[in-house]
């Protein structure tokens, strides 16, 4: 049984780690990373079958971060899981570092290089197809942004996922309603987004993207319908966990100064008891 309290405290710790990393590296997509931390924590600590000591284990579940700019929380989680030393997080965004601003597969645990939006779902379709062809049991997860839904290639992949009945594929949308220049509905209206995915033949499961019980249920128990790929619409808050960053488009890639960092860390540390140390 997964301990929800453990996941909540782990998420607070990852948020603190990523804020420190962005502060040190003087760059990062703060708001985008904070909004999907809980989804990533649910996947990496509660759902996916992985072996960090053997990153290329053939039966592992696959994860593709299609919204590659939200790399900070991802790196912090991979380090925390032991894919590479936590100390390396200090090299984020530095000259010659492998921890650059978008995932690349030189980093242990990262499956594919991403960063250009609208690529991750096609790659995931390929991985899920390979599993079906080989009769393998692993599942494929991908996390997309909501602004990313304007990319046409997302819908090419959506068609293929349903056409090939990839019920071993789970796509998650970090639906925080904000993109770099404002509200998604003002920039390029996406709604009704759930209906769009449903009409493309996907099993659509809405969830509160900050509620671990809901995330574990929505993502972890997929597929609900045999022969259908799953789309989890995770409703989130951009900048989640740091009150002054929440729902502010500026924090999409804003970098905190030392005072802001201190305020943010103070707020997050109050959420940590002792569950992660047990």
């Amino acid at each position: 049984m997964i301990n929800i309290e453990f996941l909540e405290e782990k998420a607070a710790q990852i948020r603190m780690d990523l804020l420190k990393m962005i502060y040190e590296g003087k760059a990062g997509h703060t708001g985008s990373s904070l909004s999907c931390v809980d989804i990533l924590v649910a996947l990496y600590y509660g759902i996916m079958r992985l072996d960090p000591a053997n990153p290329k284990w053939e039966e592992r579940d696959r994860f593709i971060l299609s919204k590659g700019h939200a790399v900070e929380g991802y790196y912090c989680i991979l380090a925390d899981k032991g894919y590479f030393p936590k100390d390396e997080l200090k090299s984020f965004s530095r000259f010659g570092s492998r921890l650059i601003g978008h995932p690349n597969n030189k980093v242990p645990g990262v499956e594919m290089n991403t960063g250009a939006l609208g690529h991750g779902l096609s790659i995931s379709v390929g991985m899920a197809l390979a599993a079906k062809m080989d009769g393998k049991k692993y599942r494929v997860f991908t996390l997309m942004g909501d602004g990313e839904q304007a990319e046409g290639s997302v819908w090419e992949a959506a068609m293929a996922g349903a056409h090939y009945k990839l019920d071993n594929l789970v796509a998650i949308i970090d639906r925080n309603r904000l993109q770099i220049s404002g509200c998604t509905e003002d920039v390029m209206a996406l709604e009704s987004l759930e209906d769009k995915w449903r009409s493309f033949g996907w099993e659509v499961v809405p969830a509160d993207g900050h509620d671990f019980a809901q995330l574990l249920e929505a993502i972890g128990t997929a597929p609900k319908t045999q022969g259908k790929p799953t789309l989890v619409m995770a409703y989130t808050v951009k900048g989640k966990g740091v009150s002054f960053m929440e729902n502010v488009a500026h924090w999409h890639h804003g970098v905190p100064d030392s005072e802001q960092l201190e305020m943010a860390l103070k707020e997050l540390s109050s959420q940590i008891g002792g569950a992660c140390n047990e």
Partner: protein
Amino acid sequence: MNNIPNRQVICDTLIELATKDRDIVVLTSDSRGSASMTNFAKQLPGQFIEVGIAEQNIVGIAAGLAASGKKPYVASPACFLSMRSIEQVKVDVAYSKTNVKLVGISGGLSYGALGMSHHSLQDIAVMRAIPGINIILPADRHETKRAIEALVKSGEPAYIRIGRNPVPDVYSSPEYEFEIGKAVTMAEGTDMTLIATGETVKVAVDSAEALRQKGISCRVLNMHTLKPLDEAAIIKAARETGHIITLEEHSIYGGLGAAVSEVVVQNCPVPVKILGIADEPAIPGKSGEVFKYYGLSVENVSRIAVELLKKA
């Protein structure tokens, strides 16, 4: 005259190899007919994936397959594969180093009368600018077979471009020394070197023969691999023959002529004449007619060779 198109050779060769290696898979974008892959789809349905008319998706899916241990061959018209899919080629294939083979069918001027939307005359320029992709243009059916066999053994990303129609043989059989990245010397010569790729190799070979009648001795290099480029063969040709003419079914910008010039100018500057398609929407017509219009003909190559030597 050979009547087997290179695309047919690719299908036959892949069926033969994929029967032994179940990880070889073929993907098409509603292009199984034009890629001559219908037989592959029929004989090995479990190793065939139809993606529909979605060139971005086909390359992304291929990259995901390759990252999961498959050896995907994406057979799609070169005009779309080298343009519509290019960001997926750059990021999902080249940057991620996935073992994806891009098979650009109906390349160059194959769709001559269909107009610029269907010509692929910038594909070498575009692919060559991306690090980590092998680029191959086989000269005939025998070389196509050898190239596919070599690609199946290689774990690197590659783009291979072929035309639609059968082309005359330049080799009498597939039994010759073929290596990715090594030019083949089709004829020895001392006065100048003709460097060609793909279907223009035949024009170069015939031109050399015509020039020999006029007492001009031409070396002919078949530069079947544009990347990695056989720089040593180019430098040697410049040193030993002093004049170079390049021939390609591609824009005069960014292709074989440009690649050869980059090597020549930095290592052994000698006069280079680039023959290819002018920087304009190519005139519509059958590829033979269009070749002639842009000077990719024995008559024009001979004329230019004589002029080059006169200036010397």
